[in-house]
């Protein structure tokens, strides 16, 4: 029995025939082969010959491309070879330039944004504030200081509420059934046609009373509350875009609001360029992800900018 409990007759130990033609290669032989030394075993002689043939003298075909390589070398030698520092400079130039441009753009954005916020907060010096008013519709310089006390609403409307008052005036202008055709051809009302009582005969119509009241009452906010009553009494008077003048007089502000402030060209210009201010708002909103107050709302702008109102 064998160690594996198998009878010897069942598992005969069959000897494996050794390959007599396979050379026995030792590590020393391999090192000698790779080194190209002559003292290798006789059985490895063919291998040594193969390796020697690999490093034999070059043939003409293997040296045929010399002219082409030399021409390439000549061209390269003639051209200035960029040093490592020059290459680094060339690579760094664009990145440094990009950083500078980015920093400049950021600085300009911060300055413009801060300046615009200051302009809307009405804290800039008068000439600059006036410039900002012309450019981006910021409030008129120190309007609240130059106007008499109690006329805050007038200053407010002067600095930026004109467009709003003009839109408010429109329903009234449209409202009068008998005045519809006459009101529309006068988008820029004159005090004589709308503001004085003599204008009643021209535009007014007793039947247009009800709608005229409605238009004034809804559109004028705090000012309109007091004027709504007046409009009710006047009826024929509170129509069209001249209502600001007539309203002003009704509030005892007739002297200040002699000039009609509907949607005249001058008023619109003072309210700021609509595209510029809109563009500014868009830019600031995209930069800060916060809604920017409309031009003229100085307090809101200051609050928006984080300044004490």
């Amino acid at each position, binding site marked *: 029995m064998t160690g594996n409990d198998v009878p010897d007759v069942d598992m005969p130990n069959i000897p494996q025939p050794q390959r007599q033609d396979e050379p026995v290669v030792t*590590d020393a032989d391999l090192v000698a082969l790779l080194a190209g030394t002559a003292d290798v075993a006789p059985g490895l002689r063919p291998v040594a010959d193969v390796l020697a043939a690999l*490093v034999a003298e070059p043939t003409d075909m293997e040296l045929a491309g010399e002219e082409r390589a030399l021409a390439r070398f000549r061209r390269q030698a003639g051209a200035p070879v960029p040093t490592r520092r020059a290459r680094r400079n060339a690579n760094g130039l664009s990145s440094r330039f990009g950083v500078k441009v980015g920093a400049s753009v950021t600085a300009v954005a911060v300055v413009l944004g801060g300046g615009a916020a200051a302009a809307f907060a009405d804290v800039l010096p008068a000439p600059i504030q006036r410039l900002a008013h012309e450019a981006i519709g910021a409030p008129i310089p120190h309007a609240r200081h130059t106007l008499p006390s109690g006329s805050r609403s007038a200053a407010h409307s002067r600095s930026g509420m004109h467009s709003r008052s003009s839109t408010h005036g429109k329903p009234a202008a449209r409202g009068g059934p008998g005045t519809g055709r006459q009101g529309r051809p006068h988008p820029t009302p004159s005090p004589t046609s709308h503001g004085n009582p003599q204008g009643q005969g021209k535009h007014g119509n007793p039947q247009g009373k009800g709608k005229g009241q409605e238009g004034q009452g809804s559109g004028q906010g705090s000012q309109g509350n007091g004027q709504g009553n007046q409009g009710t009494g006047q009826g024929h008077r509170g129509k069209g875009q001249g209502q600001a003048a007539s309203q002003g007089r009704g509030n005892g502000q007739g002297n200040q609001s002699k000039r009609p402030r509907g949607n005249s060209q001058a008023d619109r210009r003072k309210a700021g360029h609509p595209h510029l201010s809109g563009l500014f708002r868009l830019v600031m909103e995209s930069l800060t992800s916060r809604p920017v107050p409309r031009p003229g709302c100085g307090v809101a702008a200051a609050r928006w900018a984080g300044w004490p109102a």
Partner: protein
Amino acid sequence: MIGEEFADLLTAAQSGSEAAFSRLWRNANPALLRYLRVIAPGAEEDIAAETWVHVVRGLASFRGGEQAWRAWLFTTARRRAIDLARHRSRRPEAALDDLTAAQLPSSADSAETAIENLSTAAAIGLLAGLPPMQAEVILLRVVAGLDTESVARLLRKSPGAVRVAAHRGLRRLAQITADTGVTL
């Protein structure tokens, strides 16, 4: 191998000496072609030319001895060969099904080639019959003249793996020559 003269030749070539560069080229290009004939058969001339373009471009900034020079040369050639193989695999030029039997490349038996041509080409043919890794290691050790560590770095293998591949390749080569009775 050039030997002690190499440093002077390299300096002269970097200074623009055509003679020095020619010497370097004549010394290295045959070995380069023999190596490429095994790892990129059929494209050895193009790859060698591309390799020399790259070498000429970076010659001024090269620093090192002859071993480093040869390692740089063969590393560049190997990368070009790999790029070419990838390019060919992405854009096969013709499907084998479309080729007739006469157009198919005839790969002669390595042993037969060796018997017929007792030359370098025959030896390269024998090497080409080995597994790629073993053939490449033997070529880099024998033809390029690189030591085990340089070959390991070039192939991104461990030195031990390179030694094993070299031994196995030589044993296999010995077996082939013994089986076929090749004598060069």
